[in-house]
């Protein structure tokens, strides 16, 4: 059997390789290890649950006044080298991966956030495939008002930097001054969808497009895998309702996702 030949060949690997791969955990310590993990898991779950409940309350109710209370996470700088502090907040959950995840691309929704942008539309494109981590990221950011573009990179998922030359593994977001200049804008309604962002497993490349729009008060974002057609994306964007109409659904979506993650 051919695969047996490979199995036998693997059996002849160098001793050092084999010894390195041997699992050292013993049965007699397994019980204590399990107990340690259980206690740690309970603590983490309790902390995250508390944080999520607080974030939910913050996000859906009176979040304007709470922006200044959010965690200060980074300091982007504009083209002139001026820096300003922005507020971000992030919760991360891990989802199990699937081998076929690259083929099961999903639509991602960013939460709606307070914005300093004037009314504008834009889109982003991925010239290069980008790799991300497998997390559910529940986060929002406050753009710094850059008019020429915003950049998301692998290293700064919520980092905002000034427009510049597109380099590998970066997404460039282009801002347009009017809806007519941006593709598919005729389908965009001034509303948004808030919810959880589900990203891809580490090491998996997922090409995508990103749309955002602002009504002057809020910025809304949507991600689409490049595998979707323009018609499919237009249909998705066109189906977005006003936030206030779908808020109850979003709350239950959040609860459902948390339930699936934590059981």
């Amino acid at each position, binding site marked *: *059997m*051919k*695969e*047996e*030949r*490979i*199995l*036998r*060949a*693997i*059996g*002849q*690997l*160098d*001793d*050092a*390789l*084999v*010894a*390195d*791969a*041997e*699992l050292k*955990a013993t049965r007699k310590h397994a019980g204590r290890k399990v107990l340690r993990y259980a206690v740690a898991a309970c603590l983490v779950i309790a902390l995250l649950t508390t944080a999520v409940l607080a974030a939910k309350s913050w996000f859906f109710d009176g979040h304007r006044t709470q922006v200044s209370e959010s965690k200060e996470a980074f300091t982007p700088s504009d083209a002139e080298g001026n820096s300003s502090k922005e507020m971000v907040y992030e919760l991360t959950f*891990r989802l*199990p*991966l*699937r*081998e076929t*995840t690259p083929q099961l691309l999903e639509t991602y929704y960013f939460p709606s956030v307070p914005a300093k942008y004037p009314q504008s539309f834009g889109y982003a494109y991925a010239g290069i495939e980008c790799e991300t981590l*497998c997390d559910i990221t529940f986060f929002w950011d406050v753009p710094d008002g850059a008019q020429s573009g915003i950049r998301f990179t692998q290293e700064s998922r919520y980092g905002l930097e000034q427009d510049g030359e597109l380099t590998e593994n970066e997404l460039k977001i282009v801002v347009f001054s009017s809806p007519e200049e941006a593709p598919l804008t005729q389908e965009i309604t001034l509303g948004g969808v808030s919810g959880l962002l589900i990203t891809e*497993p*580490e*090491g*998996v490349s997922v090409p995508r497009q990103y749309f955002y729009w602002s009504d002057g008060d809020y910025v809304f974002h949507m991600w689409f895998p490049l595998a979707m057609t323009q018609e499919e994306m237009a249909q998705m964007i066109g189906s977005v309702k006003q936030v206030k109409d779908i808020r109850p659904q979003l709350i239950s979506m959040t609860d459902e996702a948390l339930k699936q993650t934590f059981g």
Partner: protein
Amino acid sequence: MQDEKIIDLFYRRDEAAIPAVVEKYGKYCYSIALRMLQSAEDAEECVNETWWKAWSAIPPHRPKHLSTFLGKITRNLALDRRKQINAQRRGGERIVLALEELGQCVQSAEGAELAVEEAELVKTIEDFLMAYPKRERNIFVGRYWHLYSISELAAAYGMSESRVSSLLFRMRKKLKACLEKEEIYL
């Protein structure tokens, strides 16, 4: 007893070497055989034969890693034993799965006339593995040498099971490409 002292017993042809090696590595070799054969009776026979083969091999061989040396003997014996056993009746699920997975790496020999020497195949697989970081390498070797289950590997490395599966899937694909590149047909 330290490995060096046990090996010295083998070299002196002192029969105390056998109980010493059984005490230190009996469970280890038994677990390897059991994972491959899923039968306590067959696993025990493999392990007993391992000590006889080790007695025959040492000297002249002086293994650097006694555990791995013994594990390899047990592994090969278990593979031979498995050939003689009905794997479907006794289970042998782990090795069936391992073989099925590794079947993905095998390039069809249609139109190819090359047969590869065992040493060349081993060297190619070693070179392939050494290109990976230690963790990925250990997971692959853990799966296909030690025949650990996906859940055991996931627990040991603090990863989800699906992430381990995904990693192994990608490595098998790359191993297949590597074997094709080296024009290795089995």
